[in-house]
């Protein structure tokens, strides 16, 4: 039986095409997206930093799919696997913490389409049955 986490990660990886991969590869953690995010601006809470909302999906990609990921895994340098606890913790950020306004893409020096990737991440949540029940 496949766990919810595996279902979610599989979907994450499936959704990570070369566009999303290049986003994860280009991000330099500059934090400028936070300065554009309505959620961050109104709460001041760093957890609403847009790129941070993608963290589980980014980790899944960097562990399983990115170039050199197999080498890094062999050397024990790959990021830790995504856990179900983490996915549940992130659900409010992925669903309630983004209204797809895409201001973060406008400010991003790398032009990363974070909102578009959030949409793809939600597909992973839906596939695993981790999406909020109200939806």
């Amino acid at each position, binding site marked *: 039986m496949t766990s919810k986490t595996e279902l979610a990660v599989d979907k994450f990886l499936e959704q990570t095409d*070369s566009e999303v991969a290049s986003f994860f*590869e280009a991000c330099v953690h*500059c934090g400028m997206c936070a300065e554009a995010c309505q959620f961050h601006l109104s709460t001041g809470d760093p957890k609403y*930093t847009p790129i941070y909302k993608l963290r589980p999906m980014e980790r899944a990609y960097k562990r399983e799919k990115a170039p050199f990921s197999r080498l890094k895994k062999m050397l024990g340098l790959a990021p830790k696997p995504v856990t179900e606890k983490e996915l549940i913790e992130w659900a409010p950020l992925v669903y309630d913490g983004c209204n797809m306004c895409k201001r973060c893409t406008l400010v991003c020096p790398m032009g990363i389409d974070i909102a578009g990737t959030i949409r793809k991440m939600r597909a992973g949540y839906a596939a695993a049955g981790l999406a909020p029940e109200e939806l």
Partner: protein
Amino acid sequence: MSFLNLVEGPLFTFAAAVFVLGALWRLIGIIRIGRAKDISPPKASAAAGFIKGNLRHFFPRGIFAKRTMVHIIGGYGFHLGLFMLVFFGVYHIDFLNERILGFSWPALPRWAFLLTSAVAFSGLITLWVRRISDPVMQLISDKDDHIGSWLTFLVMLSGCFALEQAHDSLRGVHMLLVDIWLIYFPFSRLMHSFTFFLSRGQSGMTYGRKGKVR
């Protein structure tokens, strides 16, 4: 073989090979993943979006300019400064000319080189101290960010230390750090210096196709 000959000779060749092959492998690896076929009818050219997206993100947008001023000034100061230092510093041109390319081009005068160094150092230090004092950047930063910043800083600092050109050992330390930097580069976030055009371009393609790159 002296230390300087080692770090400028075989070790440099090895590091440069790792740098070139590693970076190519990674870039090709990202592109090879491919994109799902978009079946919607295009409203505009995706290729034009690729170029437009790349160019548009060079320029900060007015609505965010004030809030991100430190990033913009520090970022541009560091990146443009480093570019000028690497490719227009007289010792760098000499090294590239003698070891790799076989041709040279005009170098920055010494005063401009020092001024550029000051700007580049200021930018890098600003970006890193922001990383440690901004809760947002503290949260999203990982080891790679710090190692990359520090390695680049040490490469620059050792280069500055060797400016007198009076001691082979100082030049050797600089070259050793350059070698380490080159080897570290393709496996780290330093790769953003190549992947940025993919990232900007691909989101430019997506939105260009929808006719929405502004």
